[in-house]
């Protein structure tokens, strides 16, 4: 088990370096000189430019810049923006918003998705099944921004069930509608994965054995079939947590939530490289960590899986 964790951690290192380096190269390949951009079209004395470039390591080759950045990162320093603001300070309040949004969406996916999937899987081929399949296919097909605006107009403005935008009412009220919109895609996948997997497992020998032993239906389904069916679902939920954090850009924009996504999107447009790299690096770290946790959960869900 611990050898497996160690091996996975070792494997995660090249992936982490590769992904962050890729982002770093992309961001700093953005055309234009960020220091000159601070002054707009006004001329800037050469020595001022050079001092500032030195301060942000812009005179080094890009790989050296990257190495220095990583070195700082492991000391908890995300660097500073070209205007001298600390990136960690710029992002700190925003992580809370994005994390609350992502968690709301994730909980929604997990609870409603598995419930719908189990409902459909147990009634395969009947009305419930058709409804869930049709509904989730529709949710997958409608782009999230169309869904977001429609939900905002209908539930926020016309029916006034939820606040239409902003975070005035705090968590959870302000986050319910955006969370459901953000989680709708994942919800569909979770429901469909659960359904397929459960329907398959219900026909397995061990379920027949459990039934033959005289176990009640709740126990057979809950303890035996559903638990084993959740393996692909857990994989998906793990992978999805990362994409929820990253995909929150659109939802945050529609519902005007001041999260990381909005900040990063603005920073990309303003060519504030350090902010983009800082936020995306943290996202990648979260993504890798969650995936590791997911792989470790397999063993608990399915005792047949052993870690070498």
């Amino acid at each position: 088990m611990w050898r497996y964790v160690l091996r996975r951690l070792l494997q995660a290192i090249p992936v982490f370096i590769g992904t962050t380096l890729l982002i770093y190269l992309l961001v700093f390949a953005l055309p234009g000189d960020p220091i000159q951009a601070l002054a707009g079209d006004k001329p800037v004395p050469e020595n001022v430019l050079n001092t500032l470039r030195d301060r942000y390591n812009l005179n080094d080759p890009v790989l050296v810049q990257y190495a220095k950045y990583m070195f700082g990162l492991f000391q908890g320093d995300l660097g500073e923006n070209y205007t001298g603001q600390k990136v960690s300070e710029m992002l700190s309040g925003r992580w809370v918003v994005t994390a609350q949004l992502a968690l709301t969406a994730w909980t929604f996916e997990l609870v409603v998705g598995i419930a719908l999937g189990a409902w459909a899987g147990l009634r395969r081929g009947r009305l419930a099944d058709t409804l869930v399949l049709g509904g989730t296919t529709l949710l997958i097909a409608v782009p999230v921004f169309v869904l977001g605006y429609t939900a905002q107009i209908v539930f926020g403005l016309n029916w006034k069930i939820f606040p239409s935008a902003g975070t005035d009412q705090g968590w959870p009220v302000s986050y319910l509608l955006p969370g459901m919109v953000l989680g709708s895609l994942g919800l569909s996948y979770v429901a469909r994965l659960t359904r397929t997997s459960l329907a398959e497992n219900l026909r397995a020998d061990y379920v027949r054995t459990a039934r033959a032993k005289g176990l009640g239906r709740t126990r057979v389904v809950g303890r035996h079939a559903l638990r084993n069916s959740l393996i692909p679902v857990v994989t998906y939920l793990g992978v999805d947590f990362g994409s929820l954090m990253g995909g929150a850009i659109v939802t945050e924009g529609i519902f005007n939530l001041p999260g990381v996504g909005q900040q990063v999107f603005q920073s990309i447009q303003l060519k504030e490289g350090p902010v983009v790299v800082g936020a995306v690096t943290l996202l990648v770290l979260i993504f890798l960590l969650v995936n590791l946790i997911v792989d470790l959960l397999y063993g608990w869900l399915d005792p047949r899986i052993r870690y070498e």
Partner: protein
Amino acid sequence: MTKHKEVDPTGPAGAAPAPAPGAGAGAPGTSAAAVAEAGGTVGGQAASLWHDAWRELRGRWVFWGSLVILALVAAMALFPSLFTGRGVNQGCDPNLSKLGPSGDHWFGTDLAGCDYFSHVVHGARPTLLIGVAVTLFAFLIALVFGMLAGYYGGPLDALIARITDVFFGLPFVLGATVILVAFPSHGPGAMTLVLVLLGWTTMIRIMRAQVIAVRDADYVQAARLLGASDRRIMTRHILPNAIAPVIVVATLNVGNVIAGEATLDFLGVGLQYPQVSWGLQLNLAQSYFVDHPHLLLFPAVFLSATVLSFLMLGDAVRDALDPKLR
């Protein structure tokens, strides 16, 4: 996708559970479809699976329904003049801005007073082109490198797996936005490139898992004993038996790519003004949705119907190919 995004790790109904990220030879994730597929071909000739699938598909209205919608959209993309007499951004009258649907303008007019119907018709081409082209390139990459990684294993496999992980770890919307802002061009070519770059990882994982599932099968061993070359084994024996789930995911992927492309257009980093696309229409209309819902409705309906058709087509093909689900 982001939604879309997030181009998803498994097919919607997950006939093929995603190979465990980074784990060895797909230990927990040896795909159900793989098993089913191998089982399905043991008894007869390779052709029978496809033959059975076709027989199954023929009788399903979902299959024909999606095909009809896709044929309609494809006709719009190929021959827009069949549907509308107006060219791209032609005959616009700013005095007629944001009119509702009427006899003259079936779908109303947009912000600049252009006929919305002809916009929607012309929007089909870039949308469909990008969706199909991206999937085709990603499919080819997956086929070649997934095959090599799965067949040879060892360091090559490890290398390809790590590179896949690197790209898989990039958040889709953020990654695409960063690349597109740096990119000098925002035409369909650039969009295709960016979407391929961020979207090839799902299929290659499935292809690799498929190849691993069949590479030690008896008929492969037999071919090897008869002296077949690696190349012949890969193309004649493994490929036909490994490709089915990848085709399914590719079909579903077209829908995801189209949704992803629309999202990037919507965010303003995708296709730009003289171009016409559904995502761009939604982007231009986003401030006016509340008072003029037709601006949201028409492009959204066409976009969703197209994505939906690809998804349902993929689902139908998967059901037909996977005997386990029958």
